[in-house]
């Protein structure tokens, strides 16, 4: 049994009753008096000069209240990374992809707004469009953005140690190429928002976002408002996975239209517009060269990567760095060289998605490590155990593993999957494979350069003493962070979970950088814990004064006050409380002083009891260029074993079983941890087997819907054995760290390796559709390779 009452349990989610009954409020459930509806005009062309925009017919349509273009919105440049602001709200000189925003309309209803959009006439002059990395990088290719020759949006060149020298000492050096595909995050709730600009000049934006804080800053900057006049409020959100981690043209269109009309304006993306806005996973093309000794010791990795970025930068600079830095662990790797290029193309913009930048890189490398294990005649698990890092190790790119249960995860999946009994003993068409991975537990630095706290939390006890109110700007997006914060607050304060209420996702509650980079449990958790301890200290101080007993002789546990000494007489407190509540039926009784009485006493002595907490990581990482990307106060890690059946005649894969072990530090909510593991595996399975955004020759998406863009259905998901491996993370609240993204990292390579084990064919390109697998099998037969 744990020493804790609340954390490390399977507490039900706070939002479960509302979500199960449909009472939870999402953006589409919100309406306001006098509300207008907005719609956006998007470019039908991939690359073209704008010669003229004529909005006169749209403006004359009855019911239209405002029409805005770059002329009204101005040309404030924005983006994600301040180093590369390359977007304006609306296109002015040219459009750069099918879907680029040109104008927006607010009208009395959506029909009218859409009709008005169709009445805006834009004259274009076609420009040559570039759809592939190869086309875009040709010397002298037309530039999407001035000043970026060969359309290189960002490039990274790093070397740690001496890779070439290390290769010379290796017994085996091999090079493999790996190609992943552009993805969509396919969250269930498309983006939506309501902007409400009031007559005192305050702008409130209700929006389906992962990052209220960053949205507030970008909106203020682009609208030209002081940050203090902009408030962002997040209702319940139906998933984000990364693409909702930045301000969108939808949000800013609603804001400017509300400012023009001084009425609330509601806007939504359709599913097709979600695909067009994208900001989801890039396509990665990795070429990796790895050198090892005969005994399996990893010596060096040379990693070259090209990313198809789409028309703007978004998170792309971080992405191209992550595609290198996240291979520094979890194996001891003394030499690593990375060259990465992110290329602009005339397609929707790619950004961050679960496992940001690290997913394809890990798939490529773990797949290659499997090949190396085979060539060395080693069991793939033994190769990994031979090289695995342990707590306290630092990677060659200066990431510190303050806790790391990597070895324990590998052993757990080996045992959980019965690896030793299955590996090498399965019939043709059936296979088993494994892989490992690690991920940040919160980015070490904010997106904009600042000494800001990453999270501030405020806890206020209700004046009656009965309720603990937690106020945080953090973002509950379906992952369960509100429940996590309630559990941390309850544990740290010593109250019952039912006593805690969480209000979150509002920039008025404080600073929180939001739900990205798997940061909230660790960072918001820290601030929540500190705020709860602050409140607890204040209550205990008052009790100490009133009861004339030392503070360290009093504790709070399970909503009751625990005194070390038996002689403490609290009858005066109780008598006063009962007197105040004459007629109430729930008066405190029993031998223990309750927290409610204590909190009421504290209020009577000091006024409202408010505690605050804050968190920012210490200075992390190295001094080299780009050293910040990949830093984190802690790293989660995981190992997975996947079993598959491959229909050798059709190429169709069935994933039969997945065994996943994840080190999340100390689990705050065990059910939530397992939920994140399950969800990550499902997303990884989709990316491995089905998912690809496809385009026609004019740069239009062919499958911008969830019928043709195939995410896994319930029937495609096998049983998952989720094993929680706990380490005690010194930098985490109660020893906790991430699980939200790290669990996706090993999924693709584990599937790739299992498919090889089943078929004897290595496939270096995703997704593993039946056709791709079949063609690989056919090519092997045609080559006369009969080796199984």
């Amino acid at each position, binding site marked *: 049994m744990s020493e804790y009452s609340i954390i490390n349990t399977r507490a039900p989610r706070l939002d479960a009753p509302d979500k199960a009954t449909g009472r939870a409020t999402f953006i589409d459930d919100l309406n306001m008096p006098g509300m207008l509806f907005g719609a956006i005009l998007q470019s039908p062309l991939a690359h073209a000069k704008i010669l003229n925009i004529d909005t006169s017919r749209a403006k004359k349509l009855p019911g239209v209240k405002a029409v805005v273009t770059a002329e009204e919105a101005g040309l404030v440049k924005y983006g994600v990374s301040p180093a590369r602001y390359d977007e304006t709200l609306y296109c002015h000189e040219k459009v750069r992809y099918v879907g680029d925003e040109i104008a927006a309309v607010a009208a009395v209803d959506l029909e009218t707004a859409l009709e008005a959009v169709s009445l805006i006439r834009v004259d274009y002059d076609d420009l040559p469009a570039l759809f592939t990395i190869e086309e875009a990088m040709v010397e002298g290719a037309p530039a999407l953005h001035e000043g970026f020759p060969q359309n290189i949006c960002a490039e990274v060149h790093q070397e740690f140690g001496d890779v070439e020298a290390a290769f010379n000492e290796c017994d085996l050096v091999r090079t493999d190429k790996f190609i992943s595909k552009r993805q969509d995050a396919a969250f269930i709730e498309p983006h939506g928002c309501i902007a409400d600009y009031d007559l005192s000049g305050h702008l409130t934006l209700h929006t389906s976002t992962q990052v209220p804080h960053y949205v507030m800053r970008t909106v203020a900057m682009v609208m030209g408002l002081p940050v203090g006049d902009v408030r962002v409020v997040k209702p319940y959100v139906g998933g984000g996975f990364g693409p909702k981690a930045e301000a969108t043209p939808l949000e800013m269109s609603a804001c400017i239209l509300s400012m023009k009309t001084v009425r609330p304006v509601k806007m939504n993306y*359709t599913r097709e517009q979600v695909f067009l806005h994208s900001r989801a996973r890039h396509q990665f093309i990795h070429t990796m060269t790895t050198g090892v000794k005969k005994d399996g010791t990893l010596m060096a990795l040379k990693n070259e990567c090209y990313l198809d970025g789409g028309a703007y930068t978004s998170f792309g600079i971080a992405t191209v760095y992550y595609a290198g830095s996240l291979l520094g662990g979890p194996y001891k790797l003394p030499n690593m060289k990375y060259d990465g290029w992110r290329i602009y193309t005339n397609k929707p913009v790619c950004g961050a998605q679960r496992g940001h930048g690290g997913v394809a890189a890990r798939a490529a490398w773990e797949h290659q490590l499997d090949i190396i294990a085979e060539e060395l005649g080693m069991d793939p698990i033994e190769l990994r155990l031979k090289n695995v890092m342990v707590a306290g190790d630092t990677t060659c790119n200066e990431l510190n593993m303050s806790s790391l249960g990597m070895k324990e995860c590998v052993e757990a999946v080996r045992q959980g999957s019965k690896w030793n009994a299955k590996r090498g003993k399965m019939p043709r068409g059936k296979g088993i494979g494994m892989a490992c991975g690690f991920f940040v537990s919160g980015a070490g630095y904010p997106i904009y350069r600042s000494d800001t706290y990453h999270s501030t939390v405020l806890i206020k006890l209700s004046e009656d003493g009965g309720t603990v109110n937690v106020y945080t700007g953090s973002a509950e997006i379906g992952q369960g962070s509100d429940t996590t914060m309630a559990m941390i607050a309850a544990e740290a304060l010593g109250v019952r979970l039912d006593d805690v209420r969480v209000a979150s996702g509002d920039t008025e509650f404080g600073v929180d950088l939001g739900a990205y980079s798997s940061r909230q449990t660790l960072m918001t958790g820290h601030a929540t814990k500190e705020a709860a301890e602050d409140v607890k200290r204040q209550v205990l101080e008052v009790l100490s004064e009133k009861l004339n007993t030392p503070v360290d002789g009093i504790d709070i546990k399970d909503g009751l006050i625990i005194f070390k000494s038996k002689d403490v007489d609290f009858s005066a407190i109780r008598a006063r409380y009962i007197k105040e509540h004459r007629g109430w039926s729930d008066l405190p009784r029993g031998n223990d002083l309750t927290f409610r009485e204590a909190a009421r006493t504290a209020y009577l002595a000091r006024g409202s009891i408010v505690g605050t907490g804050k968190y920012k990581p210490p200075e992390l990482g190295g001094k080299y260029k780009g050293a910040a990307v990949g830093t984190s106060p802690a790293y989660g890690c995981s190992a997975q074993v996947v079993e598959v059946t491959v229909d050798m005649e059709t190429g169709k894969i069935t994933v039969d079983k997945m065994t996943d072990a994840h080190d999340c530090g100390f689990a705050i909510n065990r059910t939530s941890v397992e939920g994140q593991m399950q969800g990550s595996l499902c997303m990884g399975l989709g990316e491995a*087997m089905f998912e690809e955004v*496809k385009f026609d020759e004019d740069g239009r998406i062919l*499958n911008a819907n969830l019928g043709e863009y195939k995410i896994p*259905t319930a029937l*495609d998901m096998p049983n998952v054995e989720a094993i929680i491996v706990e380490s005690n993370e010194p930098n985490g609240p109660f020893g906790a760290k991430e699980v939200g993204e790290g669990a996706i990292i090993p999924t693709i390579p584990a599937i790739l390796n299992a498919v090889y084990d089943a078929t004897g064919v290595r496939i270096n390109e995703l997704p593993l559709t*039946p056709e791709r697998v079949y063609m690989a099998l*056919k090519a092997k037969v045609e080559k006369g390779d009969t080796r199984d």
Partner: protein
Amino acid sequence: MLLPKFDFHEPTTIEEACQIMAELGQKAKLIAGGTDLIVNMKRKVLSPEHLVSLSRIDALKNVDLSDGPLRIGACVTAAALAESEGIKRTFSAFSKGASVLGTPLIRNLATIAGNLVSARPAADLPPSLMAYGAKVVLKKSAGERSVALEDFFRGPGQTVVGKDEILTEILIDKPLGYTGAGYIKLGVRKTLEISLVNVAAFISLDSQDGSIQRARIVLGAVAPIPIRVPSAEQILVGEKPTETLFVRAGETAAQDSRPIDDFRGSAEYRRDMIEVLTRRALEMAFNEARSHE
């Protein structure tokens, strides 16, 4: 996405529906489950001025398994078809087709007639219905006619149904003894799929261990309409069923088909899969035929 404006009619009898269609003709579209039509209307591919709903006509919702041919009303849903034990017993391949159409949500709405008149090349119900030799009844105010499903499709989205006609019923003769059928759908994932290739096969034996008397092979998603492959069928007729025979039939079906490349799959893969799936569907049909006295 919003629906364009239209007038909505809800007749309660087939006669009334026929009358409305006779008056409105091309300006109107019939709607049953709407799983195809509404999507196309939202995408502005279709914008009929009138929708004529068949949902209130109870006569179109019957499944008659009693004597004579199986009669299925136009508005019977895929879910009802998939759940019918009687259909599963006698027409297993058709039952299978209904059970893999779309998802549970779609199956609850989508109707058999809708799946036929929408005439999508990859639709799940036509192949097995054609393999069983199904006919459809087309009614209008002036009378009715019956058309073999084989002669029903004209191209993607196009059928022989006249602008004033309503598909009211599907008829399938009950198979004699020693007959069986199989249906296989190949997609990328396990459900919510559009077939890359689908194959239905039907076999009738002259006795339990006898020769093949009749055979039908129908391929979907490899041509503008579901197609039979007479060359492969001819290989089977009069022969004793063997594994080699089915392999040969599969090869012939593949050779004589002309699938195309599209973003869902290549012609080469589709052709190779026709070979594999035809063989497998024939094996299924044969196994059922031997056990169906």
